[in-house]
C-alpha cells in the first residue's frame, strides 16, 4: 500500500466534521428556540435558562466560524465577497437575532441608522462581527446597547455601544492596522476582537483598508466598538 493512501487529509476531515457539527447545532438551536417560545413558560426561570442555553449554542457556532475563518486567513484561502447592502437592514437583522435573549434580561437594543444608507461589504462577515460584539456587550452592559451606522467622509462607520464599565485599558486600541497587540488571555473577547480587526482589514477599496477601534466613549462612558469600512 502506498503512503499516500494512508495519509490523512486534515482539511477534508475538518470540513466534514464541521459540516456535521453545523447540522447538529442547527437542530439544537431550533429545538431550543421552539422550547423557549412556548407560551406556558413565558417569563419563567425555565425560559431564561433555555435562552441562556441558546445563547451559548450561538457562541459556540460563532467561535467555530471564527476559527475556521482565521485558519483560512492564515492559509490565504479567505477572501471577501463585497456586495451592495442596506446598513439599516443589516443592523435590524442582527438585532432580531438577539432580541429574545436581550428582552429576557431587560436590555434595550436601540438602532440609529438612516434607511437609505448603502454600504459595500461582505454581508456574512460583517454581520458576524456585529453579532460577536453585541454578545460581548450583552455580558457587560447595564441596560442599553445601541447600534448605529453613518457615512463619515469616505468610510462607512458602524458603532456598537453599551453603558457598561467599558473596555479594560489593555483592550483599548486605535486603528487595527497599526497592529496593536490583542490579548488572548481575555478568552473569546480577545479572539472576537482579533477576528473583527482581521476581517475589517480585508475590506479594501482602492488603497484604503477597513479597520476597527475600541474606546470608552459609549453610553455613559461605556464601551464603544467602531468599525470603519472603505
Amino acid at each position, binding site marked *: 500500500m502506498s503512503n499516500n493512501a494512508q495519509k490523512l487529509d486534515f482539511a477534508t476531515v475538518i*470540513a466534514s466534521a*464541521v*459540516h*456535521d*457539527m*453545523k*447540522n447538529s*447545532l*442547527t*437542530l*439544537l*438551536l*431550533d429545538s431550543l*428556540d*421552539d422550547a423557549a417560545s412556548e407560551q406556558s413558560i413565558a417569563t419563567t426561570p425555565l425560559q431564561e435558562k433555555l435562552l441562556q442555553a441558546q445563547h451559548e*449554542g450561538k457562541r459556540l*457556532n460563532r467561535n467555530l466560524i471564527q476559527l*475556521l*475563518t482565521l485558519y*483560512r486567513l492564515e492559509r490565504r484561502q*479567505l*477572501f471577501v*465577497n*463585497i*456586495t*451592495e447592502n*442596506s446598513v439599516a*437592514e443589516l443592523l435590524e*437583522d442582527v438585532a*432580531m*437575532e438577539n432580541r429574545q435573549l436581550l428582552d429576557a434580561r431587560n436590555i434595550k437594543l436601540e438602532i440609529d441608522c438612516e434607511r*437609505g444608507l448603502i454600504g*459595500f461589504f461582505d454581508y*456574512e462577515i460583517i454581520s458576524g462581527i456585529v453579532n460577536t460584539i453585541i454578545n460581548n456587550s450583552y455580558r457587560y452592559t447595564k441596560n442599553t446597547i445601541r447600534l448605529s451606522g453613518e457615512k463619515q467622509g469616505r468610510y462607512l462607520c458602524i458603532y456598537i455601544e453599551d453603558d457598561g464599565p467599558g473596555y479594560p485599558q489593555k483592550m483599548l486600541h486605535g486603528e487595527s492596522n497599526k497592529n496593536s497587540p490583542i490579548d488572548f488571555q481575555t478568552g473569546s473577547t480577545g479572539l472576537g476582537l482579533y477576528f473583527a480587526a482581521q476581517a475589517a482589514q480585508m475590506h479594501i*477599496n482602492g488603497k484604503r483598508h477597513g479597520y476597527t477601534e475600541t474606546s470608552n466613549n459609549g453610553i455613559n462612558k461605556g464601551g464603544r466598538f467602531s468599525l470603519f469600512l472603505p
Partner: protein
Amino acid sequence: MKSPKLWSLQGKSILVVDDFPGMRSMMRGMLSAYGADDITDTSNGEEAIKRMHDKSFDIVLCDYNLGEGKDGQQVLEEAKEDNLLPYSSIFIMTTAENSMEMVMGAAEYQPDDYLSKPFTKQVLQTRLKRLLARKSSLRKIARAMQRKDYSHALSLCEKQLALQPGNRFELLRLKGELSIKAQRFDAAAAAFAEVMAERELPWAKLGYGEALYHRKRYEEAKTTFKELIKASPNYVFAHDWLARVYEKLEEPEMAQEILTEATEKSPKAVLRQRALAEISHQNEDLDSAEEAYRRVMRLGKNSCYKSPADYASLSRVYLQKGNNEEAMKTLTLMKKEFHRGKSGDRLHAIILEIMLYRDMAREDEARKGITEAMTLFRDNPGGLNTLLAMDLAGACYGLGLKEEGDEIVRHIVRNNHEDQDILDGVQGMMEDCGIGDSAADLIAATRDEVITLNNRGVEMATNGALQDSIKLFAQAADGMPENLAINLNAAQSLIMFMQRYGAAPEFLEQTQSYLMRVQSLNKPSQKQDKLQIAYRKLVTSLAKA
C-alpha cells in the same frame, strides 16, 4: 390604499432538498410556521430534478452537500439548463460550509442567496421576505426573460430604472446582462460602467470586460480582466474571460496558463476544467490535456454537463500519445456511459466513435457505427445538429458510403439553406472527400426544395389557408429545428391565425417554442422583433379576455 396583508408563505410551492432527515423536518416546521402549505421535500439531487420536472416551484431551498450523487451546485446548474427555474423563482443554497467556496465552484450560475447553517426561523423569514419582495418587483421582466424576449425585458428594465428605485444596482446588472444577451454591447458596457463609477464591484468590471470582448476590443478587455484579477485574485470568472481573450489574441499558451491558475483556485467547476482540457489539447500539451479530461469526466459524473465529447477527446489524446490500449478503453467506457442516454447523446457518442475508429484505421467497426448512426438519425432527424452532421457526412464519404453521406448533407442544407458560410463549408468538405463535382448540384437542389416548400407555406398563409400553412410549417420545423426562416414562418402563420380568430393558450405556447428556437439561433432580425411584439399583444389580449 390597500390594507397591508399579513406576510405568509401560503400558496407558495416550496421544495426542500437535504440529505439529513432531521434537517428536512425542521425546515418543514419552520416554513409551516409562516403559513407554507405546499411543501415537497427530498433527500437527493436526482430526485430534486425529477420533482422540478413534474412541477414548477416558487422557492427551492437546497443544501449544498447532498452526500452521494449531485451536489447543490449541480442541481442548480441542471435546473437552470433545463429551464426549470424561471427568473421569478427563488433558489437558496443552504450550507454548513463557508459559502465562498461554493461561489468559487460556481461557473455558470449562482443561487439567489446563500443561507449558512445554523440559521433561525427569523433569519429564514427575513431572507425569504426580502427575496420575494425583490422578485415581485421584477416579475414583469422575469416573464419576458422566460420567453427569451430580451428586447422587451430591457425596455421594462429601463422603465424601472427611470423611477430611481432602491435596487438600482440590481437593475443595472440585469440591464447589462440582458443587453449582452440581446447583443447590444454598447448598452451593456454603459450599464456596467454606471455601477463602476460608484464602486468597482467585481461583477460590474467583469461585465464591462465581457462587453469589450464582444465588441472585439481584445486589448482593452485584456487590461480590464488583468486589473480585476489583481484587485480580486480569487474572482475566478475573470480568469475564464481572460483566457478567452488570449485565445482571440492567438496566445493559446497564455490561455492555458490562466486556466490552470483558475482551476487550481476552483477545482470543482466542470466547464472550466473542460476549457483547460481543450486548450491544452490544442497546445499539444498532451499530459495536461489527459489530466484535465480525466478531471472533467470525474467531476461531470453527476452533472448535466456530462458529454461524450470529453471521452472522445481523451481517447484522441491517448491515440496521439501512441497509447492505443487506453484509447480503446476510453472509447469502450464512452459507449457504456452513453448507450442508454438521451437519443441525442447516443447519436453524438456514435459519431465520435466512428471518427475514432477511422483514426485507428478500423474501418469495419466504423462502418458498423454508421449503420447505427443512420438508424438513430432517421428515427429523429431533429436530434442531429449541424456541427455533428458535418462530421458524420465526412465519415460516410470517407468510407465510400455516398448515399448515406448525401442524406446527411441534405439534412445540413435543409437546416441552413440561407447560411452561405455553412453551405460553403459543406462544399469544402465534399471537395476534401474527392466528390466536389456532385456537391454544387446536391446543395442547390436541396436548397431549392426548401425554398419551394417555404414559398408554398407563405402562399397558403397569404391566401387565407392559415390552418394548412400552420400544418406545413410545423411539420417542416420538426425536421429542420435549426432553420431560421422555417421557424420564423411557423411562428408567423400561428400568429396570423390568432390575430384573425383570437388567441388560444395552446397556440401561444407553440408560437413561443418557435420563437425561443429562433432566439437560440442567435441571428437577430427585424422579422423576429416584429413577431415578438405581435406575440406579446396576443398574450395581453388573452389575459384581458
